[in-house]
Each structure stands twice: as C-alpha cells, then as structure tokens.
C-alpha cells in the first residue's frame, strides 16, 4: 500500500502484497548498478582497464613530477607510488560519484517519469557503481604494494570503516547535489570546479602531517582527510589521525542528515521539473 500526500511524501514503492518494499529497493538498485557497469564494459574494448587506467596514469604523472622532477623532501612516505594510489583510488570513487550525481536525474528523466521505484535509488546507484569500480581497482593497489615492497599493518582492518564512511558521505552529497542541479543548472559546472579544488585540498599527493600547523586544523574539517587517512594507514600507520577521523564522522553525519532533508523537501518539485 502506498500513500502519496502533499507536500513531502516519503518515497515509498507501490509494492505488491507478495514483495516487500525493501526487497524491491535492493533489486532495483542492483539492476541499475549492473546495467551501468554492463553498458560501460560492453561499449568499449578495454572495458575494465579503463576504470583503472585513469588513476594509473594520474599516479604515474604525479610520481614522475614529485620524485623525478621536484624533490618533495619529507612530503608523503615511501614507496611514494603506493602512497599516491592508496588515496587516489578512493578519490576516483568520490569525484566520479559526485560529478555523476549532478546528472543523476536529468540523464534518467524518461525512466524516472515511468517507474515508481524510490527516487533516492537514482543517487544510490551512482554511488554503488562507482564504489564497485573502486573495489575492483583494489587489486592494482595490491600489485603495486607487493612490487614496491610496502608493508601491511593491522590498520588494514580499518578499511571497511573507511568504505562505510565514504559511502555515507558520497550518498549524502549526492542527495543534496542531484535535486538542486535540476533547478540550478549552473551547479553542474560549479561542482566540477569545487571537485578540482578539493583534489588539491585533500591529502592525496601529500599527507596532512606535511601541512603547516595552522593549516592542519582546517584540513581536519575536510571529511576526506580522515577517510583517506584510514585507507592509508594500512600501509602507512603514521597517516592515521583519530581526531581527523572523528571530525570526518561528524561532518559525514551532518552532510547525510542535510541530504535526507533536502531530498525529501525537493522531491515532488524535481518530479515536476523533469
């Protein structure tokens, strides 16, 4: 049974008596995620290679610039290529999912106009397909870690925590960005600009320890600092800063809460605009 009442009805499925709404949500999310991956891999010969080629080329460039051209001194840790990749791969997930969420509604307008699946799926599926791509790219990190002789530490156990945190953060941002882009098309370009800025403002080519003291506290406010620190601590325990992780958890919770409110309040207007 579903009830749609004005003005801020929760997104509920028109579920048949035999199927629960929860099962249908998971089924639809899975179908759309598989569709995304299948379209990507069936339309290009290199398929899977493309999703890892991008971070590989990026790391190769930064590795070359910062170890062969400039001498980075004490910034980052050895082996630098593992240091780079351990944050660059989750960054690809973050930037890919956030920039795709600007088109989450506009790209699928026809499908959204014809099905009743909960609208938050359109945000969740962008996150899921980029997240799965991230998981699939982890073997690359493993290969480089072995080849470069990086050591694993017990902090590897924190990987799931980092993934859950990032999932929540990306979902929260998506819930804010996706509906707002429908009303303010300019936001799409603004998001691209902010992402480019954020790449350098987050500890990817450097670690937060390398920052001067007065920037240290500001960097902690960036939820990505804590998350990337968690990822990195598997190879570089010195990069883990529990204060940053704590701030990151709080900021993520706030972003998610704001996202849920924005999404609920704008949903019926989004449907009219599509």
């Amino acid at each position, binding site marked *: *049974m*579903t*009830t*749609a*009442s*004005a*003005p*801020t*009805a929760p997104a509920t*499925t*028109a*579920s*048949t008596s035999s*199927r629960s709404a929860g099962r*249908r949500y998971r*089924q*639809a999310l899975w*179908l*759309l995620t598989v*569709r995304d991956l*299948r*379209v990507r891999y*069936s*339309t290009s010969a290199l398929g899977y290679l493309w999703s890892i080629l991008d971070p590989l080329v990026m790391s190769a460039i930064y590795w070359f610039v910062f170890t062969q051209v400039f001498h980075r001194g004490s910034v980052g840790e050895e082996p630098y290529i593992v240091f780079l990749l351990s944050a660059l791969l989750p960054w690809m997930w973050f930037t890919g999912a956030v920039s795709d969420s600007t088109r989450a509604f506009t790209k699928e307008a*026809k*499908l*959204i*106009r*014809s*099905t*009743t*699946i909960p609208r938050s799926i359109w945000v969740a599926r962008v996150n899921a397909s980029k997240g799965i791509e991230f998981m699939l790219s982890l073997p690359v990190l493993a290969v480089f870690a072995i080849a470069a002789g990086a050591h694993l530490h017990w902090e590897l156990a924190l990987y799931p925590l980092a993934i859950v945190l990032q999932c929540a953060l990306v979902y929260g941002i998506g819930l804010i960005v996706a509906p*707002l882009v429908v*009303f*303010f098309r300019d936001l799409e370009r603004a998001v691209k600009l902010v992402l480019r800025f954020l790449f350098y403002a987050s500890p990817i080519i450097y670690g937060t320890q390398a920052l001067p003291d007065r920037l240290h506290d500001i960097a902690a406010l960036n939820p990505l600092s804590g998350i990337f620190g968690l990822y990195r601590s598997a190879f570089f325990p010195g990069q883990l800063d529990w204060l940053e992780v704590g701030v990151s958890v709080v900021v993520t919770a706030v972003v998610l809460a704001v996202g849920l409110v924005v999404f609920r*309040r*704008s*949903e*019926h*207007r989004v*449907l*009219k605009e599509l």
Partner: protein
Amino acid sequence: MTATDRTAPSTSVAPVISVRDAGIRFKRNRRASRSFKDLFAGSNRRKRADEFWALRNVSFDVRPGEAIGVVGRNGQGKSTLLKLVAQVMLPDEGRIRVDAGVAPLIEITGGFVGDLTVRDNVYLTAGLHGMSRAEIRDAFDEIIDFAEIGDFVDTPYKHLSSGMKVRIAFAVISRLDEPVILVDEVLAVGDKSFREKCYKRIEELLSGGRTLFFVSHNDKDLRRFCDRGLYLDKGRLQLDDTIEAALARYAADHGA
C-alpha cells in the same frame, strides 16, 4: 467483447485507488527565477503569481475491476492525473492512495537502454517494475512472441526500428502482473494490426479483473474499454459518470 459485458463491480468493495482533494500546480514560465528560498519554502504557502493549478480539488474512488476513461481537451490535466495515480508525480495538496501495484503504460520505452541487447533490456525493465528473475524467465518467450521480434533478441536495442521498440516495450509492461493498468495514448503508435493486438491484450487483462485507467482522445477506444468516465476541464473534475455521459458532456462543452 465490449466493456458492458463485464459485471459491474459491487460498490461495497474497498477502493483500489482513492483520490482526495488532489491538486498540483506548475510554473507557467519555466525560466522564472528560482531562489534557494523558493526551494525550501513550505508548499502550503500561497499560490505564487507565476504558477497555476493544473489540477485542483479532484476527488474520486476507483474500485477493483473498474475501467475508467479520462476525457478532456489538451492541457486540461488528463496526463497529469494519470501520472499522479501512477505516483511518478506527487500532489502539492490532497492525498492519493493506491492500494495495489500499478503497470504504467506511460513513456513505456523510457527504461530501455540503447547499448544493451533486447534480452538484457527485458530483464532490466521488467525487473525495475518489480518482476523477479524467475518470473521474467518464465514470461520471456511469451514477451518476445507477442512483440514479434524473435530474430532480434540479441540485437542492441538502438538498432531496432521505432515500431519494434514500442512493441517490445508494450509487451514487457503489459505482461506485468499488476492489478492496476494505466494507459496514456501509447497505442496511437505502431501499425494497425499491432494496435489491434494491444487492444486485445488490454481486453484480456480487463476480463481477468484488472482495473484500467485510460486516457485517450479517441471516442471509439474509450467506449470499447471503459464503463465509467471522468471529464476534466480547467483543471477540475467536472463530471464523474458513465463514459457515455462524460463523452456527451465533452461534446456539448466543446462542440466536437
């Protein structure tokens, strides 16, 4: 077979669709300035200057097994009403309750992806509308047969002709095992023999006890399927009576 052959649903059964004082408004000018303040303002605020009510104060109940035709001129809110019932749009005021699954024949080709094969697309679209993999597997051959595209099962969807695209889409959606069917003039496309086939399918579904919500400009189609008519004009529900009465009122108002 005509609509009148079916037994009239008893009035004691609980309604499957219940619409109470539903209203929805749109911006007259899509380019109208939008501020963040506007976005977060409660929607129960007063009507804004650049907005109009596409539908307002619409109330009716639909009992299981009824076949309802919606009549009215272009732009009087017919398709909007259908979308509200399909719950792909949400009302700005009032309440719309649908107590059963809906098979919406609205923008039926919307879910299909050009780069995937017909087979993948059938599994995708049927799955998004709530069918399980096993159910789709059982129905797959029947869907392909109905669409008459047996030779193109593994062809990318984008390479199909536009007629084939509509046929496969109709075959999938009309195969959904949902108690309520919504039809929005999709049948205006396709060749004559396929259109007749679609009509036969709808009649089958109707005789199987489904509830039909039908929007059309074609009097003949409306009389063929529907026994009850809703006449919409100026965003209001002007008449809720038999389909004959609704068509007569429409003809009287607009000299059809």
